[in-house]
């Protein structure tokens, strides 16, 4: 039987398919500009009911809500500090998560300690939730290492730069959980751009075939560097999952409560042995792709401004205030904590030593390698020759 694409198509701003798009006759629904998504808090901070997902945040306490708020504020503060450290030359590069705090904190807080997380290079908020010291994230951006924490310390894998690779690692890890008979789950992060990589599709398929307990969490921040997401996909990304045989859902990624609820749903069903799920968190990269990028070359600022109205932190603050879940004192204290975090990060980065030059030869192999030993020795002799020359 024919399965026509029933999805609402996204607006096609690019002219890439312009010439033929007009000839299509099969789209069943007219294009709509706003995708349907799971939302529990409106941009104005109003709680809206959702029959399917309310139950996943039903028992949430004011304290927990304040906790989410705190997580987002501190993450943003950390992120801003890192951006400014890059400008000061302390970091070589920074990939800001500005705007994506709710998606990351909501999903990150949904994970259990024994779950395992596979991030991209932008999941500073998730790292925060996992208890990774934020200063550890900065090593690779400063250029002192390529991954500065023990993945098994917090079940938070290293940042992965080759787009999409980690989706397969996550799936394999989840297959291992099944083999172990454990009831934990895995969550794999990736972006809208990454969805185009073959590895991500292969991961979807392996996960489905082995019914692996893995949640694919795609932060659709609308951009892959300069490419808007309609250059990556013809239909909403959450629908990709269906073709591989598992559910997909689009959540308001600027709504921390909805992100928490939907991720809990997905992780719980994974833990119950119901297999993978795909979550598309609809959000926005408020800043540049990285500090090397200049978004004014490819996008209008009014788009960014429109998203500013949907700010994830602001909306939770409105909700907290409207429902009297937080008072002035809380916000003031958080402000202080924020500044302290910024200071700590600043100082930690400035104190970061360059690695010893012999680190080049360390850890290339776990069991050693004759050539590495030989080259290390030659390198040492070469270095020593200068010491000799300098009469040291």
């Amino acid at each position, binding site marked *: 039987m024919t399965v026509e694409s029933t999805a609402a198509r996204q607006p096609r701003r690019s002219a890439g398919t312009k010439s033929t798009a007009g000839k299509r006759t099969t789209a069943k629904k007219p294009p709509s500009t706003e995708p349907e998504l799971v939302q529990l808090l409106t941009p104005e901070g109003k709680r809206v009911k959702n029959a399917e997902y309310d139950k996943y945040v039903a028992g949430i306490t004011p304290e927990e809500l304040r906790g989410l708020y705190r997580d987002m504020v501190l993450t943003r503060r950390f992120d801003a500090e890192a951006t400014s450290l890059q400008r000061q030359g302390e970091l070589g590069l920074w990939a800001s998560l500005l705007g994506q705090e709710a998606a990351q904190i909501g999903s990150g807080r949904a994970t259990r300690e024994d779950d*395992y997380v596979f991030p991209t290079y932008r999941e500073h908020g998730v790292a925060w939730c996992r208890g990774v010291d934020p200063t550890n994230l900065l090593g690779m951006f400063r250029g002192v*290492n*390529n*991954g*500065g*924490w*023990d*993945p*098994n310390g917090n079940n938070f*894998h*290293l940042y*992965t730069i*080759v787009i999409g*690779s980690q*989706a*397969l*690692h*996550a*799936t*394999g*890890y*989840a*297959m*291992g*959980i099944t*083999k*172990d008979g454990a009831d934990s789950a895995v969550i794999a992060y990736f972006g809208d751009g990454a969805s185009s990589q*073959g*590895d991500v599709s*292969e*991961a979807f*398929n*392996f996960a489905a*075939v082995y019914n692996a307990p893995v949640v694919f969490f795609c932060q659709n921040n609308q951009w892959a560097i300069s490419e808007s997401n309609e250059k990556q996909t013809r239909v909403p990304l959450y629908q990709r999952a269906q073709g591989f045989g598992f559910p997909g859902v689009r959540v308001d990624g600027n709504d921390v409560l909805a992100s928490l609820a939907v991720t809990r749903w997905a992780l719980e069903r994974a833990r119950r042995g119901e297999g993978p799920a795909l979550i598309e968190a609809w959000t926005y990269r408020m800043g540049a792709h990285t500090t090397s990028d200049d978004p004014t070359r490819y996008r209008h600022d009014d788009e960014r401004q429109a998203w500013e109205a949907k700010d994830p932190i602001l909306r939770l603050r409105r909700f907290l205030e409207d429902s009297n879940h937080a008072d002035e004192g809380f916000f003031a204290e958080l402000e202080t904590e924020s500044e302290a975090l910024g200071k700590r990060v600043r100082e930690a980065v400035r104190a970061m030593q360059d690695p010893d030059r012999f680190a080049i030869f*360390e*850890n*290339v*192999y*776990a*069991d050693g*390698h*004759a*050539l*590495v030993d030989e080259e290390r020795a030659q390198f040492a002799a070469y270095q020593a020759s200068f010491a000799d020359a300098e009469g040291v």
Partner: protein
Amino acid sequence: MAAEKMALAKAINESMRRALETDPKVVIMGEDVGKLGGVFRVTDGLQKDFGEDRVIDTPLAESGIVGTAIGLALRGYRPVVEIQFDGFVFPAYDQIVTQLAKMHARSLGKVKLPVVVRIPYGGGIGAVEHHSESPEALFAHVAGLKVVSPSNASDAYWMMQQAIQSDDPVIFFEPKRRYWDKAEVNTEAIPDPLHRARVVREGTDLTLAAYGPMVKLCQEAADAAAEEGKNLEVLDLRSVSPLDFDAVQASVEKTRRLVVVHEAPVFFGSGAEIAARITERCFYHLEAPVLRVGGYHAPYPPARLEEEYLPSLDRVLDAVDRALAY
């Protein structure tokens, strides 16, 4: 069954069986490795005896196979992955080069990836395109990988044991045209270290160095040369990365001449690295340049031409003559 004569393919099978028996974390993965036992039957009977949870037929996706094997290794497993043929490893190349090879260093040693990637390789079996290639140089150039290739059943057995026990990723090149060659395998022996070369024939006039499928050819060439009164030493390198340059150097200091033989194209092949480094180490010992015998700079040809493309007894002897003529 301490010592038994068996085919090289069977030796690998027995070695994996032993690993599956002794270490519950060992899993076998690949296309058709289950009921079929692999297209070369190297995994024959393993799924039957160890179940589908440990001997896993995967979807047809090499990147997926290696990528999920990495994930399993992160979870504490020791996957032994089969790539069906040499020419089909390339979809997995990104996972191998950017992830498998580098994750230990990236994590400053926190993460180990004990993954074995088995690749039946080389020609001489009359196959269609992509089924006869020798891509070992493409892995040896990549730091973080170890690359080995046994030439006989006994090494196949023991090197597989060692590869599985290694905490590093090992690309394990199996000489497919030797799968059916039998040799004595002593499963209670104390094996040589995995990356140590071995003199398989002592000689004085010239060293022939090879690994995997070409060792036997070199031995035959040495036999033929002996009839002409030339006394060749034959070195089974066994490991391509690391490469046992000390052993090659020791041999060349004695024989003063070296010919390297491999099936892979000569251009940017293993012979280049060996020639460069041995020339540096033995500059005053060498009486002739290191000569290389290998494939041409051309895609592996159709089967009817492979005998012309591959190193042959005559081509090896031709190189020997040329080296001795210096």
